[in-house]
């Protein structure tokens, strides 16, 4: 069911729940702005999704690069170390030495070995009996050889070579220790220590540079990879956000009363499920609301139909009671009283039916505004005169307090306020308010017409006891009885409801309140 924006809003207010109104009724309230649009959070869903994506990509890239780097570094170092240790062992095995160490002869041997460094040149040192004696350099000692390595190479029972990587002044070195064994025949194939240990020190600058290059390559590769990851991140974020955005739009539409708002759900992921659930809920809601509206419309149509059906026989009855009224004087007193009672009640019934039909027209939204540019004070005055609440003499005191001939109604009318009003409906509004004040309040009733903040204000105040606080919120309700004990009132019980509907039709507001100094005051505001 598609409704125009204006009628839709009205129908929203006509659902049963809307009947519980407060005294302060704003016909314009339905025009409230939709919920204030907040600026998107700086870390919106899109940003968070993209960041998460990038983070995952970064962690993935980083971990892969780190593991690759570690493996490659290990491989590079292992190859260098194995080559160096192996070739140094072969060189040591080719040594010919005297025991104890002959330093001159050994230096010649060391110089020969130093030239055979594999895979890089090395410096060679010879230790005998725990003291470094000779080297291929000009100093027999080396600061790169750690006591750790030397102790290990000399330890009792050691029959193996060992190496250690040492960093001195940011330069990595590979230090190798190979103990020289005494040939021992078959019995001790591992040999007996000769007290001679040979050390080699190799600069790992080339390996360091290679490894450094790998780090640079990994870093330079990771940045473009992250940039590339940005594209799927944005696409994924868009894919997730589109249904969310659509959902928001649909929910917003539904909030504004467009119950036919639906989401285009495709796929079978969680978001599509959510969209389908939303669509089902919306459909269910739409169906329920439509049912409620139909039920209400049926009820109203029934009231309208009843009123219509009652009207014709009532017209006949009214004609008959008029005749009877005229003849009442000729009847005996009991019959005459009965006839007058019937006549009065029939009159009330006629008013009630008229009011019911009027309010039915409002409910059916068949009420139309025939607005004219008129002088508000003039209209009010005419109404009061027509009801004989003020005499024609009231015209004399324009805009000032004028006591009517009857003394019941006092007017303070500001002339010259031109407003677009439907004279007939405005007449009903004023007549109902003043009639209500006269009926339930106490004289004098003050009627004021003035202009305030771009609105025409009609104020009707009485000097009665005022409206009880618990009744105040309901004075505009239909058939609401201020005093539950008083089941019968002079009016139809629809007067103020019709007043409110008429004011709304003018786009205005109606407010009931109690004056601090006693008495009720009804204030109508109609925008100019």
């Amino acid at each position, binding site marked *: 069911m598609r409704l125009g924006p204006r009628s839709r809003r009205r129908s929203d207010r006509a659902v049963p729940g809307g009947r519980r109104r407060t005294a302060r009724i704003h016909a314009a309230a339905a025009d409230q702005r939709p919920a204030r649009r907040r600026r998107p959070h700086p870390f919106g869903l899109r940003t968070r999704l993209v960041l998460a994506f990038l983070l995952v990509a970064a*962690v993935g890239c*980083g*971990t892969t*690069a*780190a*593991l690759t*780097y*570690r493996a490659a570094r290990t491989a590079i170092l292992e190859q260098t*170390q*194995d080559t160096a*240790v*192996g070739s140094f*062992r072969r060189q*040591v*095995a080719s*040594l*010919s*030495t*005297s*025991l*104890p160490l002959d330093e001159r002869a050994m230096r010649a041997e060391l110089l020969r070995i130093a030239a055979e460094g594999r895979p890089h040149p090395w410096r060679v040192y010879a230790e*005998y*009996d*725990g*003291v470094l004696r000779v080297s291929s350099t000009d100093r027999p000692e080396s600061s790169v050889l750690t006591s750790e*390595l030397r102790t*290990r190479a000399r330890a*009792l*029972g050691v*029959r*193996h*070579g*060992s*190496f*250690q*990587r040492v*960093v001195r002044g940011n330069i*990595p070195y590979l230090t*190798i220790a*190979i103990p*020289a*064994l*005494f*040939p*021992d*025949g078959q*019995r*001790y194939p*591992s*040999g*007996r*220590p*000769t*007290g*001679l240990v040979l050390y080699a020190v190799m600069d*790992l600058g080339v*390996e360091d540079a290679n*490894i*450094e290059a790998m*780090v640079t390559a990994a870093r330079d590769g990771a940045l473009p990879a992250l940039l590339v990851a940005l594209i799927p991140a944005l696409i994924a974020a868009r894919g997730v956000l589109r249904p969310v955005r659509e959902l928001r739009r649909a929910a917003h539409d539904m909030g504004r009363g467009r119950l036919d708002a639906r989401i285009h759900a495709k796929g079978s992921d969680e978001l599509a499920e959510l969209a389908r659930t939303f669509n089902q809920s919306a459909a269910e809601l739409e169906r329920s609301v439509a049912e409620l509206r139909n039920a209400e419309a049926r009820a109203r149509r029934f009231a309208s139909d009843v009123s219509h059906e009652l009207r014709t026989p009532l017209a006949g009855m009214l004609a008959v009671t008029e005749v009877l009224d005229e003849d009442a004087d000729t009847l005996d007193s009991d019959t005459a009283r009965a006839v007058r009672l019937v006549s009065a009640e029939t009159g009330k019934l006629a008013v009630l039916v008229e009011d019911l039909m009027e309010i039915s027209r409002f409910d059916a939204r068949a009420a139309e505004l025939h607005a004219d540019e008129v002088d508000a004070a003039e209209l009010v005055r005419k109404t009061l005169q027509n009801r004989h609440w003020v005499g024609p003499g009231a015209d004399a005191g324009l805009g000032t307090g004028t006591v009517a001939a009857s003394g019941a109604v006092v007017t303070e009318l500001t002339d010259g306020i031109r407003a677009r009003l439907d004279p007939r409906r405005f007449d009903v509004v004023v007549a109902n308010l003043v009639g209500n004040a006269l009926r339930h309040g106490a004289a004098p009733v003050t009627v004021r017409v003035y202009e305030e903040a771009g609105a025409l204000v009609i104020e009707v105040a009485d000097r009665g006891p005022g409206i009880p606080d618990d009744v105040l919120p309901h004075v505009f309700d239909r058939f609401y009885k201020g005093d539950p004990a008083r089941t019968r009132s002079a009016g139809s019980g629809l007067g103020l409801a019709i007043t409110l509907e008429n004011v709304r039709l003018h786009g205005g507001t109606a407010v009931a309140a109690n004056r601090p100094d006693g008495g009720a005051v009804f204030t109508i505001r109609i925008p100019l």
Partner: protein
Amino acid sequence: MTRSPSLARRARAAALTLALVPLAAACGIQKSDVVEAGGAATVTVQPAAGTRLLLFFVGRDGRLLPVARGLPGEVVDGTGPGATTGTATPRTAPPADPSGGKPIPVDKLLSVLMEGPNEQERAAGLTTHLDMDGKALFFAGPLPGPDGAPVLSVRFDTTVLDLDPLAVRQVVCTMAYSVDPGAAVSVTLVGTDGALPATRCEPD
């Protein structure tokens, strides 16, 4: 949500740090511990076997180190320990060098050992723990011992039970290598106060 946001954030940060630690912490070549890598190397010792005396002296930190000296002139020409007149009289034939070289003059060898390291060896830091005044009286063996392994006996005219263990090892190793390049012989020292158990020259 049961966890507080700050806790969740901290957990996330920790995970991120954990993931980045291997990347950040291990750049370049790191220093390492001492790593064992393959065997040692066997060197050629000059002078070659058969033309040397192999003596054992004590190094700086109390371990036995071999010293190779060239044979003294008269010993090189000698016909063997049996032919040489000396304080020690081997009862059996002198051990032959399996490599086919000349026989090792065992009695000479022991007296050279008792003389201690020469100047060059002392300069290299070698000492001897063998300070007994006695002389080797005779050698016997190698004869099959109780367990079938060959045993070389060396008899001294002094006490041997109170000898420094290192001194005993010096004698044992020097003697063992002199009869067998593999030093597979056990050596027992016999003195006036009794005999030491037969031991082999075990490497350190």
